[in-house]
């Protein structure tokens, strides 16, 4: 087998495996307007690849992730703002699709507890300190 045919065979062989491996944005998706492309990347990094484990669509090569990347770019070209795009995504897929959970009643604890932990931590120390004797 010549070198060239071997390469062709392997490339064909490998293609199917690319479909479920971890790859990212492909060159043909990239928008010409750099500002828009950057926006698309920022949004994609916050959108979960629904069929992957803990990956954003920006990092994933799953077909669904690719579709979503293209949809996001189309929406940007149509002039939608970020908020509208996120709304479109959550209407379709639910909050699960956002890697940064939106602030809602059910996520209040998630977003504010760290801050409250912080206050409580210092509060306990201050109160303890007030009670204690100086040495």
């Amino acid at each position, binding site marked *: 087998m010549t070198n060239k045919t071997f390469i*062709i065979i392997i*490339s064909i*062989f490998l293609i199917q495996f690319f479909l479920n491996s971890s790859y990212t944005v492909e060159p*043909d998706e990239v928008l010409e307007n750099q500002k828009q492309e950057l926006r698309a990347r920022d949004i994609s990094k916050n959108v*979960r690849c629904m069929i992957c*484990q803990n990956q954003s669509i920006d*990092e994933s090569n799953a077909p669904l992730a690719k579709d979503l990347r293209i949809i996001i770019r189309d929406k940007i070209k149509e002039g939608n703002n970020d908020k509208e795009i996120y709304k479109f995504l959550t209407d379709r897929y639910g909050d699960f699709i956002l890697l940064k*959970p939106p602030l809602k009643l059910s996520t209040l604890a*998630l977003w504010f507890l760290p801050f409250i932990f912080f206050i409580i931590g210092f509060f306990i120390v201050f109160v303890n300190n007030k009670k204690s004797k100086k040495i």
Partner: protein
Amino acid sequence: MAPTLGNFALWLSLFFAIFQFFTSRKNNKLKFITVSVNGLLISSLISFFLLMYVHIVSDFSVLNVFQNSHTTKPLLYKISGVWGNHEGSMLLWILVLTIFNYFIFKLYNKKNSAFISKTLETQAFITTGFILFTILTSNPFERMIPAQENGLGFNPILQDPALAIHPPLLYIGYVGFSAAFSISIATLSVEDGEKIPWHIYMKPFVLAAWTFLSIGIALGALWAYYELGWGGWWFWDPVENASFMPWLLGTALLHSLIIVEKRKSLRAWVLLLSILAFLLSVIGTFLVRSGILTSVHTFALDPSRGIYILIFAALLGGYSLILFGVKSKRYFDNNYFTFFSKEGSILINNILMVVICSTVFLGTIYPLLIEALTNNKISVGEPYYNSTVIPIMIPAILVMGIGPILGWGKEDKSKTLKKIFPTILLTTIMTIFIFLIYQSYSVIGIAGIILAFWIISNNLLILIKKDKNCSMGMIIAHLGIGLVILGITSSSVWQEEKITKMKIDSETKIKKYNIVFEKINEIKESNYVALRGDFLVYDDKKNIITILKPENRFYLIKNNFTTEASIHTNLFRDLYIVLGEGNLNDGWIVRIYYNPLVIWIWIGSLIIFIGGIVSMNINLRKLKILY
């Protein structure tokens, strides 16, 4: 034969663990304790090495070998394959437990016999729990009938030297906290605990755990960086969080122990922290092995395992926390803290570490809570952690820079200002210097670089001044942290990425480098076939720098596909190339990353490790003085 013997040795270790529990509980005959501790160590060594043996000789009558190995696998990965799967890794976990158990036993003498016996009793309880777990739910010596010709192979992305030693290092970390846990339980339980120098006993174990956990996490990140192929190295994956949480508490614990030693304060707090650090290690194991969290670390999943660990963790947690509640009163000290002092700064950082740990814990379990309570699914990913953890991390690092140069008790503010003036100067110069090179003005970038040099220059100055108030291990480890921050900041803020389609002989440019796609080769190895691209890298003066050779591998046995990134590293930047999909006619998708200063993450981690070892040495000497 070997699998039967191994299984027998495993049962024998169960016997010795239970025996140790009862003999050390009564603390009457040293002879019995000696027999049980040594018996436990030897039998778990035997079962571990017999499992290694059946992996090396590819004994496919053992289910575990059949499922995870193959005759064509290189020897190194046959060995690391022992702990590359759930069942085998439990055996390693048990082995590390019994080694720590042995070291605890070595501390035994006439004066502290009651205390060490109690520690050994607790340790025996933990060991029994894990051996029972292994035997009942995950016995690696389970046979398969009939024996098979060959195995199913081993996940190829795990066939890697860094990942081969990553689990043992992590386990030393997790399990090291078991020793601190046991010592804490003993301190709370025995009558005259206040009179025992328990913190001196505890410190080397905490240091060992923390040091190995640090380097274990770093190796995992390094592996993710070059193996997963998208230029990142930390993904806030639940499993990464499971190792990061004990690390954070371990950091707090380590520093609080200094205050216990020097000021006799925070004793109850340290006892609580050492309990929590180990509990988090066990809960982390539960999260990983039960499969209730989806993660990139896929272990063989089985709900019965999850339930067992959950019950075990609840038992350990319930007992230890109730014990703490009832018995910790005598360890509460009412000492006043001035915030502007060494102990003040340690205290502040303690709070911050615990707050970060709680935040990570919250983010990890929140999706589970929401799903259980409201039936909705949410994701908590990287953006959440970035916007919660980083703001708490920044003050912690600021304090970390100044803490070591403050004195105990009270510190004069103007004197301190004079002391830190050279640091501020050095930090400013270095920061300006870095920005002249990278010319980027992101806010996080500026903050990160300032913080990194704040730590680095402070510790360099302490080193030059030979400050006697500071321990060598601390300076080295802090220096390492500074370097890690430098690497993290610059590689995440100034990373450049280029995704392009390249045909053979075409070229592309990233920063000042010209990259020419020279040719594509086929590779045939014993366990995979691959396509490899050769990329010539030229700098702006047209000198050739290197040839990068990224690969796409296809592993025939597991039907698995991996990409091997090719990286050229120097002290200033990494050039990172990944070969994507493609063919001869249309060209290949190529992704190129320019990652500034990324190597300092790994150098820094190594320096942290060295600092930990140095500190361990110092603290072991303190321990020896007791004998």
